[in-house]
């Protein structure tokens, strides 16, 4: 029998340590392959460290000299290129994805063959970006099929050099990004829309709302978190755009470096294994990415002011 004074010895089984054990592999791999390299990238960006032939120069500490050289050497131009290439591809992507998502989830419309369409629009995402770019390079080259078709249809008399014109090259890159990602965005938005309580739509219908009103007043505000996610991930991917423009323009960003993205510029420094300058580009890109993502996040998830406005014609307190 228990005495009053001895403390109750509860043998509780603690499962905490198993949790830590299971998440340990991820953290170990993350630290070794992501965090330490990230740290050393930022570290070396303050050094002069490159290779001249077979000789290694550095690492010599030079402080912020790499960053100064960066901003004197057209970094704003490359950032501008990257943002332009991303936006021109993203705007059609989000519009068409929203449209498709709305149509696919609309029970009134009841579109047939949805699984077929969903598979087909997702497929470009599965192709390797470099293979896709090679395909477009051949398709749109001066003696390629597209020029051949345009000439035989009488639209052009001479082949149009898509890859030697600014609009042509940028347009192709944005188009490729759009094709590769709009399927993914559509599926995500569909999932978001299907998560909205159908009771709200029914209530709105009873009140006489049109499809447009229901879409803009109910659907869009309620899928805001997913839209924020789509925007942020697309922004991060867009800022790091590399393989499509690299393969399409053979690394040169022609014409006149108008399609050179930040990472292509970084890659140029790898010719001489210039870890100092490449590290500086990486660090700047990381900071820009972080700032832009914070901005997007706060815009998309701020409290909706309209909810606090008094309802028109409704009961006042």
């Amino acid at each position: 029998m228990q005495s009053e004074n001895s403390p109750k010895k509860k043998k509780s089984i603690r499962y905490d340590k198993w949790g830590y054990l299971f998440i340990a592999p991820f953290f170990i791999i993350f630290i070794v392959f992501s965090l330490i390299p990230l740290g050393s990238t930022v570290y070396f960006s303050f050094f002069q460290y490159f290779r001249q032939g077979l000789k290694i120069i550095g690492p010599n500490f030079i402080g912020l000299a790499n960053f100064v050289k960066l901003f004197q050497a057209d970094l704003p131009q490359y950032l501008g290129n990257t943002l332009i290439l991303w936006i021109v591809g993203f705007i059609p992507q989000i519009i068409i994805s929203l449209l498709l998502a709305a149509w696919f989830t609309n029970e009134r419309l009841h579109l047939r063959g949805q699984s077929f369409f969903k598979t087909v629009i997702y497929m470009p995402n599965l192709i390797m970006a470099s293979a896709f770019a090679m395909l477009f390079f051949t398709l749109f080259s001066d003696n390629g099929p597209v020029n051949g078709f345009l000439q035989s249809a009488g639209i052009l008399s001479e082949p149009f050099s898509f890859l030697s014109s600014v609009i042509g090259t940028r347009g192709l890159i944005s188009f490729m990004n759009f094709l590769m990602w709009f399927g993914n965005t559509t599926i995500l938005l569909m999932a978001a829309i299907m998560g909205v309580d159908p009771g709200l739509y029914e209530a709105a219908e009873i009140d006489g709302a049109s499809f447009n009103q229901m879409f803009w007043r109910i659907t869009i505000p309620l899928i805001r978190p997913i839209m924020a996610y789509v925007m942020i991930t697309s922004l991060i991917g867009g800022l790091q755009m590399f393989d499509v423009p690299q393969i399409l323009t053979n690394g040169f960003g022609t014409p006149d470096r108008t399609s050179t993205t930040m990472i292509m510029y970084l890659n140029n420094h790898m010719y001489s294994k210039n870890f100092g300058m490449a590290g500086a580009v990486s660090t700047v890109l990381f900071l820009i990415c972080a700032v832009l993502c914070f901005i997007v996040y706060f815009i998309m998830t701020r409290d909706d002011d309209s909810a606090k406005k008094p309802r028109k014609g409704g009961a006042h307190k």
Partner: protein
Amino acid sequence: MAGNSRSVCVSPFHCKSSLGTDDPTKVQEGLSDWTKFDNVAKQASAKGYKMLSGFDDSYRTFSNNVSTPWVTDTTVNVDANIMKWVTQTKDYTTKNYNDKSILWDNKWQADQGPSGKVLGFFYSTWGINFTLLGNSLKTPTKEGGKEEVGNGAYGDYAVCQGPQGYYWGGTWICAAKGTDNVATIKNVMKTLTCDSTIMKKITTVTQDYTNNKSAMEELANSDFKSAFLGGQNHIKLFAAVAPTIDMSKAGAYDQGCNEAFQAAFHDYFNGTVDLAKAKANFEKAIKEKYPDLTAVKWPA
């Protein structure tokens, strides 16, 4: 690391036999210097042919005949001869004497075939069997076509010296420093460069020009014929030109400089940028490639 070269890439001009004469010596008379070359370009254009396929075809003829190496200390010297290439190519592009292709791209490869309207190509010895032969066939070998006269432009090409001699590559055998197989490597190197029987065999089978003077001279003076070149003994031509090649200006920065220069000036030829911007783009690119270089000097 020691190196030994196995084949020499003497580089002549390969032209299609549509110049009105089949005899390579007569053709050479019409192409023996740049003024005559430009003249032929004009005549060819009048008949609907293009003299060259792309912007970079004639580049090496100019870049291999410069008077200073690309880089001295940390300054890049752009030789006046290279600017001659810029002027010639811009001229040819404006007058439509070239097909605006870039070396190795689809259009350049297609221009070598039976439907191409390009007169000739600056090619090296390896170019004959490695690239030109394959591209000249109408039915490629992997689709069952045979390498014989009648299949596309096979047999239509011939070789002449062209306006200037130059080199394009070469095959090198290198030994790694500190290797434990010194004897074997020495054997391999000696056999593949100094054994004239083997070198002669390589040339007869692949039509490549190998680095063995006695074997090549033997073949040059024999009745060796190349079916692809319409019966011409091109080894004789190479053997005559090989001693004139000057490699004294070659340097460690050549590859980066050549590539960056050509790329920077493509935009100029296409009319996207003006000459000053093209020069500035080259300076930008070369400093990225070689961070130790500090200045670029242009000729007056």
